[in-house]
């Protein structure tokens, strides 16, 4: 990047200043996001039914010592939850960005296209089956189940996308698929009998609670691999932003590219759904906010930006979900919807104006 700054600053000063400002903007945006991430992480650790001071937190985290109750709360409850919100929030918004690129539709996302709900359906079926067999569904089972669920919904969406070119129609179809999957899930949960069903119910509404270290480790590995692959695809994604024809002419292997895009976005969103249930609007709102913040859609910047932004967004929403009406917890989707839905409405209105 340094190289870039240097050569754009040509003798004709003004352009150099402009280019310089752009890089300052990028740096500032990433600085702000990282800063928010740190602040929210600390804030999340210290707030809750038991308040833990920042000094104690630092002691517990870095020296691994402190009062037993506080130590356990931090290490066994709050920290995995925070890490989950961070990793899964990031994964979800990157997944949204990939879907928006794929469908060339700014309001596409894993939730509105019914992909999260498909994952939810298969995961609940697997969970209930396991409960009845008195076995425990491992993180691995959940991810695989969620991935299959995502792919089933994605299959339907792709079939519909071939028939309808209209962006709102696609989203409406996705929402319908989502409703069908949710209805079946509710049905299954209602008639499954087990004491653990309460947890299942919480999960099916979307929540970061009850996430174990085991879950966090697996999610971290899967998301990290997907993120690296996604980042390596920034170049073809940038070509694809000009549409399929141009991308193809630039030498992108369209078929392989489309398959990878679908697989990556499905794995990312499946990972989220497997552990935290369906979470609404993050996948649409965050990429949009990040692009507006960076003032560019260059994937090489937007992909890491989305990850950070998604992490910040979910940490904030989770903080609100568990503290505002404590001890009652809100579902994470209710909170993300409050912040995310207006952004979606804004995008649609603005699009309309541009098109009209």
């Amino acid at each position, binding site marked *: 990047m340094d190289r870039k700054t240097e*050569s754009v600053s040509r003798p004709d000063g003004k352009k150099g200043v402009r280019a310089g400002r752009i890089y300052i903007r990028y740096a500032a945006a990433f600085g702000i996001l990282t800063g928010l991430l740190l602040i929210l992480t600390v804030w999340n650790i210290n707030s809750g039914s038991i308040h833990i001071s920042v000094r104690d937190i630092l002691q517990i985290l870095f020296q691994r010592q402190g009062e037993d109750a506080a130590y356990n709360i931090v290490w066994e409850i709050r920290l995995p939850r925070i890490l989950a919100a961070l990793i899964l929030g990031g994964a979800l918004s990157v997944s949204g960005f990939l879907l928006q690129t794929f469908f060339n539709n700014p309001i596409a996302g894993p939730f509105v296209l019914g992909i999260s709900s498909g994952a939810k359906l298969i995961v609940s079926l697997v969970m209930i089956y396991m409960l009845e067999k008195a076995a425990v569904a491992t993180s691995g089972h959940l991810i695989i189940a969620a991935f299959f669920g995502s792919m089933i919904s994605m299959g339907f969406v792709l079939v519909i996308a071939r028939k309808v070119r209209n962006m709102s129609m696609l989203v409406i179809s996705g929402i319908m698929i989502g409703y069908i999957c949710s209805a079946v899930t509710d049905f299954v949960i209602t008639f499954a009998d087990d004491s653990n069903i309460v947890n299942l119910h919480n999960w099916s509404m979307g929540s970061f609670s009850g996430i174990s270290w085991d879950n966090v480790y697996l999610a971290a590995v899967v998301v990290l691999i997907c993120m690296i692959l996604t980042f390596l695809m920034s170049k073809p994604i940038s070509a694809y932003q*000009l*549409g399929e*024809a*141009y991308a193809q*002419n630039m030498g*992108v292997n369209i078929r392989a590219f489309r398959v990878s895009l679908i697989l990556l976005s499905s794995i990312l969103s499946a990972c989220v759904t497997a552990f935290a249930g369906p979470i609404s609007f993050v996948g649409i709102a965050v990429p949009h906010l990040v692009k507006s913040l960076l003032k560019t*859609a260059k994937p090489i910047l937007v992909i890491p930006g989305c990850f950070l932004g998604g992490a910040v967004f979910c940490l904030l929403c989770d903080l609100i979900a568990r503290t505002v009406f404590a001890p009652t917890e809100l579902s994470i989707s209710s909170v993300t919807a409050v912040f995310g839905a207006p952004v979606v409405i804004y995008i649609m209105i603005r699009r309309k104006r541009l098109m009209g």
Partner: protein
Amino acid sequence: MSEYVVRTKQMEVGYDGKPLIRNIEISLKPGEILTLIGPNGAGKSTILKSMTRQLKLIGGTVYLGNDIMSRMSGNEVARKLSVVMTERLRPEMMTCEDVVSTGRYPYTGTLGILTKEDRNKVREAMELVHTLEFKDRDFTAVSDGQRQRVLLARAICQEPEIIVLDEPASFLDIRHKLELLSVLKNMVLQKNTAVLMSLHELDLAQKVSDRVICVHGDKIEKYGEPEEIFSSEYIHELYGITTGSYNELFGCLEMQRPSGDPRVFVIGGNGKGIPVYRKLQRAGIPFAAGVLHRNDMDYEVAKVLASAVIPEEPFSPVSRENYEKAKLAMLSCEKVICCTDIFGPGNYKNRDLLTDAEKAGIPVVYSGQT
């Protein structure tokens, strides 16, 4: 090394395995502009899409230089051939420079980061098509004409041997059509790039192309220099024109002539008649025009708009025979419009016609005289 940049051999194109157009033999040398013309739906885009691998060939072969295109990798093709498509683009939050930069795609590394050389190429390309001054503006915020030039710059900085453009001038107003084709021609002269495009603008196609291909029915009907292709008869046939007409000399279109017996007699010449003919056509008044020399530009328009024209051979005085014919036609009209006040040995007889009209009591209106 093949002398051709691109060459097709027995190419068959179409959709879903069904051939639309067969036996297409196109070849382009460096620095040549080849234009496809033909009615809507004739398959111009299909041919272009097949030659840029967006559509699978039904049969035959496309060679890029000496290589068979279908056997080349995406990147190899990208370094030799770039495109400007018809579809309107709406990329999100990309500046014009960002759009042009994507042209460097085949040359950059895994992450697509531009080197200094890449950025220079982008700058050069933008300069060549006069887009540098708005390089930092959002691509969706500039005018259609500017946008097409940006896309052309994108295609140029891909450093291809051939650029394929599908109806590049379609959304543009005349000023921008002219600008686009001028920068295109300029690029061809400077870079010796070959250009293959489809155009709807016949007048411009005639002037900008080195060779023209006419796509009609299921075949390439004609292939040659614009001078061979652009005859009024052939253009009428190619497009199936039944109302109105195309003029090969002016490259312009005229509306259909008013029907009925002539009600007005127009004495023209020297180009002064044309606006009067068109005015009468608009008003739906059938008219006769005379006596016009075949080398007078008025004759070109009169022959397609007037119900009757009394022509005279070039550079000769109006003959008695033609004078009598004109007089006969004039006497059955309600009105005479005289568009010229310049009379010489060639058209003294036209002045006699005016006197005849006055004698016969037909009102004479003088129009557009200087």
